[in-house]
């Protein structure tokens, strides 16, 4: 019981301990001038994970580190980098965890194999349930 209370207190207190007084990075809360580039950045940012938060994209978080990551993304987009290159750059540092968009790899292949399998199973069920009936006709 005590542990639970402590745990809950820890959860509640957690955001407090991570408070700092520094102003946010320049591009944390500022959009890029060019709407096309900003759109690219927004799309990428909404699929990158805020590492300090529980489960939020860096585009949905007020955590200072999320702001710093947004700054990195916008700076790199402004420098002409492609969104997928920036994603790869972050994955090189933090692993697949940082990206909400799983890529096919040795650790994630079931995520892609299962839907394919599901399509087959669904077809099979439908053929069995519906197809056979037509040949046998009504009861």
């Amino acid at each position, binding site marked *: 019981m005590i542990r639970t209370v402590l745990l809950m207190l820890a959860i509640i207190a957690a955001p407090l301990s991570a408070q700092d007084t520094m102003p946010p990075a320049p591009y944390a809360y500022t959009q890029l001038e060019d709407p096309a580039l900003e759109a690219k950045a927004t799309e990428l940012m909404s699929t990158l994970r805020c590492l300090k938060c*529980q489960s939020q994209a860096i585009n949905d978080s007020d955590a200072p580190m999320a702001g710093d990551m947004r700054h990195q993304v916008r700076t790199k987009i402004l420098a002409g980098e492609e969104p997928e290159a920036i994603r790869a750059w972050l994955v090189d540092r933090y692993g697949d965890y940082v990206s909400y968009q*799983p890529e096919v790899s040795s650790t994630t292949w*079931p*995520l892609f194999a299962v839907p394919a399998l599901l399509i087959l199973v669904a077809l099979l069920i439908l053929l069995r349930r519906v197809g056979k009936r037509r040949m046998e006709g009504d009861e």
Partner: protein
Amino acid sequence: MIAELGLAALWLATALAVLQIVSGVLGLRAGEKGAALAIYARPAAVVQAFLAVLAFFLLLWAFAITDLSIKLVATNSHSMKPMLYKLTGTWGNHEGSMLLWVAVLALSGGLLAGLERRLPHKTMSATLAVQGFVALGFYAFLLLSSNPFERLPIPAVEGTGLNPLLQDIGLAIHPPTLYVGYVGLSVAFSLAMGALIAKQVTPDFAKVMRPWVLFAWVFLTLGITAGSYWAYYELGWGGWWFWDPVENSSLMPWLAATALLHSVSVLAARDALRTWTIMLGVLAFSMSMLGTFLVRSGVLTSVHAFAVDPERGSFILLLLGLYIGGALAIFAVRAGSITEGKRFSVTSRESALVFNNVMLSAILAIVLLGTLYPLLTEAFDVRVSVGPPYFNPAGAIFAIPMFIVMGVGPLLRWKQDKPARIQFELSLIAAVAIAVVSVVAILGDYSILAVLGLALSVALGIAAFLPLRGRKIGRVPLATWGMIMAHFGVAVSLFGMASESAFTEERLAAVTPGSTEQLGDWNIELMGVDPVAGPNWTAVEARLAVSRGDEEPTIINPQARNFWAPAQATSESALVTRWDGQLYAVIGEQSEDGRWQLRVWWKPFVTFIWYGGLLISLGGVLSIVGRVRLDLKRRSAVRKGKARRDDKAALSGAPQPEPAE
């Protein structure tokens, strides 16, 4: 006294649950004759419902008067809190919400036991035994590991307060609604198991089950809708769905319940899909329990996880293994003995319903896989994230064919039909979809999923009303109106989702008071920023004058709040709702040069997402009312018929033949 009384009520309810199991099992054994003890199952369930609800109200009372000698109140409440949030604080924590869960469980069990008279004795006995068994597990959980009435040795001087994110009217309605939905599915589960054990999977059983499924489904829909809207305005970034594990936990039972709802209709109307219905009945409640496990055990990372504890996780896992493992084992052994039921041709309403059942199940499988996959890799110390870029396309593979068939299915006849008969409707739906795709393609460059979503939603919105074609409006049954409303709601919601994802405009800026920002055709002027204070928080409040085109400006007041018990900061967004969308404004921090961070979004038709949810629920309600009314009419007709036969029998002295059902 309150705490002791509540605890006593819970223990008594536990004892009655045991009686209910014993009595139910004996009733099942004895068959239609009935055993001496078998008559206690129904009263045990009814009295239990009273006791569990009483226990919940006692806890509610303790929160209302802030009884700080009760540990739960001391750790979750505060004497300075507004009364409303003192009350909602009752279920804003683990113990209180489990008590609410148990109270609803007992209440549903009591209602089932008290009102249901149509089922064969064997099925009813088995159902009540299963319901008692489920209740017993949750009473044990509450009493052994999550006692809400635990006293503190010395009463606390002041409470620690409630997580500020939860001090919101959204919390007042969202979790309890969802629980009613989750727990309502327990009745469907008990009925499915009862019918399976008694081997009486019949259309009559389906008719008994249907209102329960509808009832749970309406509450799940409302709960998800409210939860989504709450996350939208409370988390401060305008997101309404992020495929977060906790969000998925509420969606999965809904998907299963939606499939169950349609399959139970087939069983009731056509005596087909018997095993499939039983399977979905088990699956739907499994998903409810799985959701509870995921949210409370802390095995997955979520933004919405508020009270996690691995020990409680173990207890819930144990219950999950007992009920779901047990049910699936019985299903594996017994399902073979239940025949599939009546047959139907490819072009029939049954086929369309089967198709959509399979698609819904496939979507459920995708959501389940994506939610649990990180858990699997973490067992190997690898962390991955699965988010919207996975769920959206993978779900769409099955959702798109489902929406198409959903438009056509209700137009087909039961058993057998010819596609040529509905040629006009088919061409109309296709033409509308193609027209919308073309228009959107001319408007701009949007993602494929958004374009398809827009096209399907418009086509579906029209298709929803096509079953009325050629019918006398006045004579359409209420349940059919329910279906039309619910299907139209899906279209409305889908339109909102697609529109929000395609057309949202965003403006982030650092502004000085007096300056004006532009967003689409909106002008947003920051008039000033003032400090304000609430009962348990202080805040900075921005005064924004927003106007669209040349209209008169509206003043809105987004706040950045700092709560002091417990200390935490939240953003209170300010919304301007128009028929065609919402303006969403958030005030952030002040930078060193004195400018304020302002975030503004214009989200066209975003409100349709939740209007759609409400329409779907309304459809469910209409359907329940329609079915129950029909049922009561039929019952009174049967009663009158019986009375007449009895009269005749009394007159002639000879038994009259029973009419065929």
